[in-house]
């Protein structure tokens, strides 16, 4: 004889399991934060075109624009690689570093800030003097870096590493080395503080983690990122890029991680993100699938093998973006 309470539990088991799963899933939403790929490869300097170089092998890609007026740097690599970044910049130019742009708060894009900040007058040889480097970011990056605290209340990012110039307007322009440079806020892609940097004369776009070719889109919902915002950002970058004849070359893109790309590569990534968005829309909004069912439906089939990474898996991505469709 089964007691009434036991009968209730048996009958209600699917519902209870769903509720437990839903609670766990909700908890997971807050915890699924993307990790960048591990630092790998040897340090490498590649001339992209015009006045722009790529420094790779230091974590996130670092872009350097250099000429007579000095050096303009986009991102500073991973923590612990600051000295490598400085020595690489010194091989490109003996002029002082004047500006740094942090494209986001991602660890591998701000890690070298402190090392570069103490260079006297921005000199990579250490022989310079004068004002410290002007470090630009969207103001949300500055805000988050300044308020971030560890479990014991300690400051995660030392003040020396903070941007010195947080902008809040949608787009900022400046001339450096005779070249017009656009710093454009992408409001809700990886986070709410993403910038892409376009060197007009060199025709090189630096995307930060809004676009990589090493993994699935990095989206940090805890910091204002979203899949919709990522697609908007990718489309906005497509409006900037112009390919040369027959869909090759033209505007080159330095992604947050991975190889130097052009518009066709960006199109492939945008198409993937767009198709994934539509598949999730169908499964979650129209068909009403829960997270477990979505995972079973494998909406990323077609890109799983290429982009699944241990630190940012297909399932982690799906668990993160699921909330956006509810």
């Amino acid at each position, binding site marked *: 004889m089964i007691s009434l309470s036991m009968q209730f539990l048996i009958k209600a088991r699917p519902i209870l399991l769903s509720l437990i799963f839903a609670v766990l899933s909700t908890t997971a939403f807050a915890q699924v934060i993307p990790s960048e790929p591990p630092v790998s*490869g040897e340090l*490498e300097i*590649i001339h992209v075109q015009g006045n722009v170089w*790529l420094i*790779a092998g230091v974590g996130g*890609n670092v872009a350097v624009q250099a000429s007579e007026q000095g050096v303009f740097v986009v991102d500073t690599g991973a923590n612990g690689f600051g000295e490598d970044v400085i020595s690489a910049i010194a091989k490109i130019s003996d002029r002082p570093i004047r500006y740094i742009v942090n494209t986001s708060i991602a660890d591998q894009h701000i890690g070298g800030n402190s090392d570069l900040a103490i260079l006297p007058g921005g000199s990579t040889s250490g022989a310079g003097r004068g004002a410290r480097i002007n470090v630009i970011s969207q103001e949300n990056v500055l805000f988050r870096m300044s308020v971030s605290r560890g479990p014991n209340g300690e400051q995660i990012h030392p003040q020396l590493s903070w941007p010195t110039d947080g902008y809040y307007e949608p787009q900022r322009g400046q001339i450096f080395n005779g070249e017009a440079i656009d710093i454009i806020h992408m409001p809700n892609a990886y986070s709410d503080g993403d910038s892409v940097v376009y060197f007009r004369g060199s025709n090189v776009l630096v995307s930060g983690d809004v676009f990589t*070719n090493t993994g699935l889109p990095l989206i940090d919902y805890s910091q204002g990122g979203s899949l919709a915002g990522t697609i908007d950002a990718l*489309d906005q970058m*497509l409006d900037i890029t112009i*390919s040369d*004849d*027959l*869909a*090759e070359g033209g505007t*080159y893109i330095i992604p947050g991680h*991975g*190889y*130097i*790309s*052009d*518009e*066709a*590569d960006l*199109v*492939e990534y*945008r*198409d993937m993100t*767009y*198709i994934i968005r*539509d*598949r999730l829309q*169908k499964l979650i909004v129209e068909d009403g699938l829960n997270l477990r069912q979505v995972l079973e*439906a494998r*909406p990323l*089939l*077609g*890109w*799983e*093998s*290429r982009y699944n990474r241990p630190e940012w898996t297909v399932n982690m991505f799906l668990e993160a973006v699921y909330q956006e469709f509810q």
Partner: protein
Amino acid sequence: MFKKVIFLALLCQVVPLNAQESDIVGFWNQPAPGLSLGGVAALFGFSEDAIERADGPPVVDFLGIPLNEEALSRALAYDSAILGVPEHVCMRHPSTYSFWGPANLRIAAQLNENLDIISYSVGGTFRRADRTIWMDGRDHPSEHAPHTWAGYTSGQWENGTLVTKTTHLKWGWIRRNGVPSSDQATVYTYYQRNDDVLTITWFVEDPHYLTDTYMKSADFIIAPQGVTTASFDLEAADTNNGVFAECLNRAEIARPEKHYVPHYLPGENPFIGEWANDIGVPIDATLGGEETAYPEYRDQL
């Protein structure tokens, strides 16, 4: 891989061992001019692969392609309306496919001061993903170097056959009905001359989309009178009876959404079964897979 071993074994049988190099430099035409479609197709020789020309192969015809479930998912998502999207309009035929398309080849050799061959240039494939084959033993570029439609190719002569390896390819396709290739695919190409015929055989290996090597070949006949190829120079194209190759991204269809990506959701491709019905085979056969590449698969139909 198994197919490549068989191919190499056959090659060793038919090629004299003392023939270290062959002369592949010159003009090469595709044999047997075939259909004339508005005058365009008549410029090129079409033969056994006519089904690949003009509008291209049937949609959802993946028979004989060793694609995996990931490639099938993408191939079934493919909507040919993508070809009208401005960002896609001008994409070239990648090296995973290009010799299967319309191609009148011009092959040239670059020599150093000692007359050693430093590289070959192979030009003329559709929309000109011209290939440079580096013969001087240089390394392939780093993992951070750009990827191109032609890719980066190195080569060497082996018993009279030029054997090349191509990496750094863009995302592309191996058939013009949406079967994808990834940016980590590798193409091995064999150029073998037998008198006036140049046979080019290529093997695509793709760790993300293929369960086995995908193999294709195309024949070209020597054309001492020259061949028509696409030119990037409008004046040269006009005066040399050439085809102007420049392509500019332009919207061909007015759409309300600026950045529209045509595709089919899983299970919604309306063309599944169409070609199967046309030729009277089960739908599963048209969805491809490694087993459909072998002759014994016919016994299952």
